[in-house]
């Protein structure tokens, strides 16, 4: 198990390097003169040169990269051009909000998706199965931002039950969590269902029944543990979709997270912040996938012998 973990960690290193490289290149790939664009249209030539020197854009590119890496190790992501605050603190103040939203979304999708998938599989072709699959299909196709707006329309504007914006108590979290989690719920439901269907026809389920196990134990102990293995992988990948969806959901619900920060910074040409947020998002995703791989190894004892 330990060897597997070490191997897995080693495999991340080139990926991490690639991520850092891409994020680093982001500013430098902007067509035209990045310093000029960032300085804005009002800036004088002198301002542009100052900015260029400040951002280190005048140095040769490999030097820039090394400086970049060095700053990263110290936790320095640069300074926001808009607010003149360190990018790191801008991100860190808002990151918990995004985290809260994404985790809530993941929660919703697993809490609804897995049981729905299991019930659908066990009661194949029944009414509940058909309804669940229909809902899943529509959930898959519904754009998150539209869903958010419609939910606001229904629950805030028309019914007045739930608030439409900002972060706060749990009632503020409900609509955004459903919005951001809808697609994942649909995908997890489908995947759990097909996984369970495959497992239920396996021979070892017959053995479990032949020992006199009640059907509930057969499904939950014998079948589910096997069926969850591919679902876990999908759930991990879905976290990425959730992060992307968070960007849209934060915009709809005026949620104070790094997704909104990203969009605002793009329009303000605040590239250091854009860089920082992209880095944050992708690192979170990598970490989640690493965690998923470890969980996978725990669930499926066969995988360690890779």
């Amino acid at each position, binding site marked *: 198990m330990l060897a597997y973990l070490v191997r897995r960690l080693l495999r991340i290193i080139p990926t991490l390097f690639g991520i850092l490289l*891409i994020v680093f290149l982001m500013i430098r790939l902007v067509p035209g003169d990045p310093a000029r664009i960032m300085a804005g249209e009002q800036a004088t030539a002198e301002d542009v040169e100052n900015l260029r020197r400040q951002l280190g854009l005048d140095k040769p590119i490999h030097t820039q990269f090394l400086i970049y890496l060095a700053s990263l190790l110290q936790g320095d992501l640069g300074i926001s051009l808009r607010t003149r605050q360190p990018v790191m603190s801008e991100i860190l103040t808002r990151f918990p909000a995004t985290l809260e939203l994404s985790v809530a979304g993941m929660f919703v999708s697993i809490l609804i998706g897995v049981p729905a998938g299991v019930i659908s599989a066990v009661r194949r072709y029944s009414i509940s199965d058909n309804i669940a699959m229909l809902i899943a299909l529509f959930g898959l196709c519904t754009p998150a931002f539209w869903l958010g707006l419609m939910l606001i329309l229904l629950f805030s504007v028309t019914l007045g039950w739930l608030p439409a914006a900002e972060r706060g108590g749990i009632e503020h979290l409900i609509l955004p969590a459903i919005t951001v989690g809808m697609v994942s719920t649909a995908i997890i439901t489908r995947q759990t269902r097909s996984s369970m269907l495959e497992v239920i026809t396996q021979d070892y389920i017959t053995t479990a029944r032949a020992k006199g196990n009640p059907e509930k134990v057969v499904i939950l102990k014998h079948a589910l543990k096997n069926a969850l293995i591919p679902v876990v992988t999908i759930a991990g990948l879905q976290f990425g979709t959730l*992060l992307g969806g968070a960007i849209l959901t934060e915009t709809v619900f005026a949620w104070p997270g790094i997704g909104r920060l990203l969009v605002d910074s*793009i329009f303000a040409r605040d590239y250091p912040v854009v860089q920082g947020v992209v880095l944050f998002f992708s690192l979170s995703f990598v970490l989640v996938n690493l965690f998923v791989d470890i969980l996978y190894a725990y669930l499926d004892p066969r995988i360690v012998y890779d």
Partner: protein
Amino acid sequence: MRKIIRRIKWLEKARLGAFVKILENRMAILGIIILLAFAFSAVFADFISPYDPLHIDLEKMLEKPSTKHILGTDELGRDILSRIIYGTRISLMIGVISVIIGLLFGVPLGAVAGYCGGKIDNIFMGITDVLLSFPSLLLAIAIVAVLGTSLVNAMIAIGISQIPVFARLVRGSVLSLKGREFVEAAKGVGATNFRIIFSHILPNCLAPIIVQSTLLIASGIIAGAGLGFLGLGAQPPTPEWGAMLSRGRIYIRVAPHICFFPGLTIMLAVLGFNLLGDVLRDVLDPRLRMLKARI
């Protein structure tokens, strides 16, 4: 008596299973109808659109759906139905072109990686891994942030985010087909590696590629609308569905129809492609086994 009851229930169950099969086919028909409707609107927009989508009429702004404007008007008095019809062109373009970009770069990438193995495989898959470690929407947003906000850049961005998906898919297929006899036969006749990959192996991978393309057109449409919603795609006054939603947000209390209809359209378009993809998967998959290798 009990036996008879059991038998009846049993037959009902068996028929219900058959019913579901028919239903699945009905879904397929629905999907195809939807897609045909959208394709039709895209091509014949000029003919079927009741108004000019860009025509501003401030006197008629925020009108609810009526007989004159079937889906109502937006905040600048433009007819929503017309804008949705013209928007079909944009969204379909985004969907299709991004998939073309994904195919153009992803398929060769994956094919060469799978076929050659070794260092090349590691390098190519390393690139793919890095691309895949960005959530796809984020990658698209980042690319648009760098290149600038426009429809073309949105298509490029989404296309790039789809490259690793195709690469992985094709690599998997190629890996499993690499050892088959027809490859050996082609080598024996002296075919170059290039020829083997593109004339022999790839045609046998077509089925999953086709299915995945259809599904990715669907996700491309949603991604395009998402970018539009954030203001990162087609710029006003282009009638893009996501952008329409975004601008309609502030009026949601007084004129919810501005948000409702474009969003519904997005959902229908995505539904159509998803249904088509599911159908293709069912149709092509079993036949895949019987698809004979082209030698």
